[in-house]
């Protein structure tokens, strides 16, 4: 049985494997033994539960089941545990939970996936419970040692104190005894009004290792005997590899093997650069299949035409047909959005070590549970013998929910019998993403004589994520990803219908930061703006009146208007636009201030954001997520566009898949209008949907030109 590679052994091994003849003494890297949160199983010490381990030196190890891709869960989730544990925060050390353990021990970490802006809202209660349970057992252990009633003891800052005698014991001294205590009844958890730590701005644990190069991302994995692989798959999705001629490259320096992978091929070499260069020179013949004749222009036409087909009903109230027929005024518009790539800064990569009856995988994944199953299936090893070593993710945004790169790495490691680090080039990453679906949306409104919105008829034609991922057929023609933000729109409209047409092409589609809301908010909030102008109503006032009965929305909207200077005059060529949208349980309103030059150059100057996510765990990381979501949305709105020609993606890298950079980054102000109570909303995604419509509405205010198709770079805004 091969031995487990522990975190410490792993770091030691990677140091001793340091290559290059070192002339000077000392390690090349400064402070290589970084306090990294690698998952480490099994625990050596008695645990209080699967989440909490207290070491004799009083370190509090708190396991984190979600992945750290920038959203700050490595700090916010331990805050929830520590809120109840009453430990010394300075002694907390977060550690990624083990997917292996989650599989073999009946899901102690529940669902480990990171997505749907769900890390806090889906785990808060059981994390509080884990902390509370541990605290009560630590108190009980002290009480037994002192032979006093537990009710006379309390826990504070990592100590249990007996009030009457002043005796005290540290958590570290009590941990072993507490681990053996079983409670008859689990303690109740704190309500938000009792929180002391939750809600306080706390510094992130991962910042120090991210400013000096120590943080280990998947791509930084370094194992003894490791070789490197570069892979490519058929440029036309679904196509296959017909033929390759390995003799052309096998003589190149360092090249070890050429290994077929599903739909493509990988070259293995002693260094990544040698693998990448050899792959570029490998003669291949693809069998692209029928999709090679398709292109984005045809898709665009097909999605718009699909709107006239028989849509599945996602929502229906009143009589839309009748109300539209009887309307005093009608407004109609079609909105279109393209495919989008995720383009995380760290290109997809995976290091796998297949050893007959065991697989070890080092990867930045949003879904360790699925990664474990995929490795087992691909490598034909029992899932209980698969170990996923979760690394930091260099961005995820949804892309790392499905790990295509993992299957390749496992196959290649199995073929060569060595640990393999497989890295996708940026080109492979852009051209073999699973994209935000392309869509067309049609809106029809009927206005009453007094300008009120009497009827709203919405139809969306969009790629099905469920079908693309093979998760199901969405047999009733509906899926939440397609209709979220539309079927549950907040506006009081007496006659409302939302229809859905799921229509896939050969282009794979998946979750992209904010998923369906990314296109649905753009269309809905742009259209509400159009209705406002058509009915000569202020866009803020129209929304306010349509939000009757939604006090939460109205609070956000009112605060937004106040903070965002709504109604204050803007110079010629400048505009202010507004949008509000709820996704993942959180309402976000945004006001965008834009300047459009006479030649049509768009400059976003300021974005004011108001958020109602119910409660805030760490205000620092929440603000960071809003800033992040705004920039992510801004890049997509201005530039984001993946186009298909002859079945393949035309864009390939950051030179033709453009990104917002420093010079285009606006001021971003984040404010809160929190509902509190039982509401716990997500935060990673909800800041993205309102950006595109608020920007498009601001451009309309500045120029009188309506953006109905994204990205904005394609719009003719100049004189």
């Amino acid at each position, binding site marked *: 049985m091969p031995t487990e590679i522990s975190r410490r052994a792993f770091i030691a091994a990677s140091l001793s*494997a*340091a*290559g*290059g*003849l*070192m*002339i*000077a003494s*000392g390690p*090349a*890297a*400064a402070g290589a033994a970084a306090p990294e949160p690698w998952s480490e199983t099994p625990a050596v010490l008695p645990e209080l539960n699967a989440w909490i381990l207290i070491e004799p030196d009083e370190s509090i190890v708190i396991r984190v089941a979600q992945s*750290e*891709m*920038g*959203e700050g869960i490595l700090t916010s989730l331990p805050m929830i545990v520590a809120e109840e544990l009453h430990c010394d925060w300075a002694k907390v050390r977060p550690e990624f939970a083990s997917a292996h353990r989650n599989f073999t021990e009946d899901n102690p970490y529940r669902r480990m996936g990171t997505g749907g802006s769900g890390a806090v809202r889906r785990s808060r209660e059981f994390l509080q419970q884990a902390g509370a349970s541990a605290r009560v057992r630590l108190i009980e252990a002290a009480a037994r040692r002192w032979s006093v009633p537990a009710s006379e003891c309390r826990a504070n800052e990592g100590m249990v104190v007996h009030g009457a005698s002043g005796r005290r014991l540290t958590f570290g001294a009590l941990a072993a005894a507490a681990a053996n205590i079983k409670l008859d009844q689990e303690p109740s958890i704190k309500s938000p009004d009792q929180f002391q730590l939750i809600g306080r701005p706390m*510094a*992130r644990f*991962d*910042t120090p*290792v*991210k*400013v*000096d*190069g120590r*943080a*280990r991302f998947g*791509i930084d994995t*370094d194992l003894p005997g490791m070789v*490197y692989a570069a892979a490519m798959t058929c440029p036309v999705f679904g196509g296959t590899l017909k033929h390759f001629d390995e003799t052309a490259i096998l003589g190149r*320096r360092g090249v070890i093997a050429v290994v077929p992978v599903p739909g493509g091929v990988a070259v293995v070499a002693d*260094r*990544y*650069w040698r693998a990448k260069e050899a792959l570029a020179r490998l003669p291949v013949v693809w069998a692209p299949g029928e999709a090679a004749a398709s292109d984005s222009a045809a898709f665009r036409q097909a999605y718009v035409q699909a709107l006239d087909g028989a849509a599945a009903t996602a929502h229906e109230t009143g009589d839309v047909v009748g109300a539209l027929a009887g309307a005093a005024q009608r407004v109609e518009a079609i909105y279109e959005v393209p495919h989008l790539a995720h383009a*995380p*800064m*760290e*290109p997809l990569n995976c290091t796998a070590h297949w050893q007959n009856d065991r697989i070890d995988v080092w990867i930045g994944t949003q879904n360790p549970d699925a990664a474990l199953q995929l490795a087992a299936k691909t490598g034909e090893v029992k899932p209980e013998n698969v170990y996923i070593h979760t690394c*930091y993710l*260099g*961005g*995820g*945004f949804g892309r790392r929910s499905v790990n295509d790169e993992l299957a390749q790495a496992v196959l290649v490691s199995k073929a060569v019998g060595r640990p393999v680090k497989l*890295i996708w080039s*940026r080109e492979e990453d852009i051209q073999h993403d699973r994209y935000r679906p392309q869509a067309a949306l049609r809106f029809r409104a009927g206005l009453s004589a007094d300008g009120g919105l009497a009827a709203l008829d919405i139809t969306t034609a969009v790629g099905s994520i469920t079908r693309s991922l093979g998760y199901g057929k969405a047999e009733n023609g509906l899926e939440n990803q397609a209709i979220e933000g539309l079927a549950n729109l907040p506006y009081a409209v007496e006659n409302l219908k939302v229809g859905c047409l799921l229509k896939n092409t050969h282009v794979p589609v998946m979750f992209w930061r904010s998923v369906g809301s990314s296109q649905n908010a753009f269309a809905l909030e742009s259209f509400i703006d159009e209705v406002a102008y058509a009915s000569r109503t202020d866009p803020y006032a129209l929304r306010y009146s349509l939000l009757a009965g939604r006090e939460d929305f109205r609070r956000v909207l009112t605060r937004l208007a106040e903070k965002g200077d709504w109604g204050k005059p803007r110079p010629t060529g400048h505009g202010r636009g507004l949008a509000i949208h709820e996704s993942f349980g959180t309402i976000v309103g945004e006001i965008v201030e834009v300047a459009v030059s006479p030649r049509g150059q768009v400059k976003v100057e300021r974005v004011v954001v108001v958020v109602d996510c119910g409660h805030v765990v760490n205000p620092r990381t929440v603000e*960071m997520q809003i*800033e*992040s979501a705004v*920039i*992510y949305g*801004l890049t997509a709105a201005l530039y984001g566009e993946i186009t298909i020609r002859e079945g393949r993606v035309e864009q390939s*890298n*950051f030179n033709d898949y453009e*990104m917002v*950079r*420093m*010079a285009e*980054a606006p*001021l*971003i102000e984040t404010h809160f209008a929190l509902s509190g109570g039982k509401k716990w909303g997500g935060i990673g995604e909800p800041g993205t949907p309102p950006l595109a419509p608020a920007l498009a509405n601001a451009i309309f205010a500045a120029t009188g030109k309506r953006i109905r198709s994204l990205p904005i770079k394609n719009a003719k805004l100049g004189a």
Partner: protein
Amino acid sequence: MTQAVVLTVNGRRFEVDCEPETPLLWVLRDELHLTGTKYGCGIAACGACTVHVEGKAMRACVLSLADVVSKEIVTIEGLGASQLSPVQKAWIEHDVPQCGYCQSGQIMAAAALLAQNPQPTDADIDAAMTNICRCGTYTRIRAAIHRAAELIRL
């Protein structure tokens, strides 16, 4: 055949045996195991691989080994090797990193800017800081550069 060349990185000399056209990025990462310098695009478009060559911010993915022989190279590991640089301190104060992947390059670009221009204006920052951050940390990077300029003056 290739022959070993000597490279000076972070004040230390290393002998490496690589093809002269090998990009400095991969020499740093795979030969010297200095993984703080990141691969992002391979075409000098994103800046994740930014290092200092003779004190100037350069993109290591498009510099060949032959280009940098006998030149002074500093990576993120060397920037704050003895103690954190003002830029790194300011980055911590302003909670700049999110996923963190681009931050080595951002910090190296900012440090080179400040070395050349100790009190950059917003326009100077716009012109010098062209690295991509997908997490959108730009506003914090800007604030942190101004703060680092203050720390340098102190």
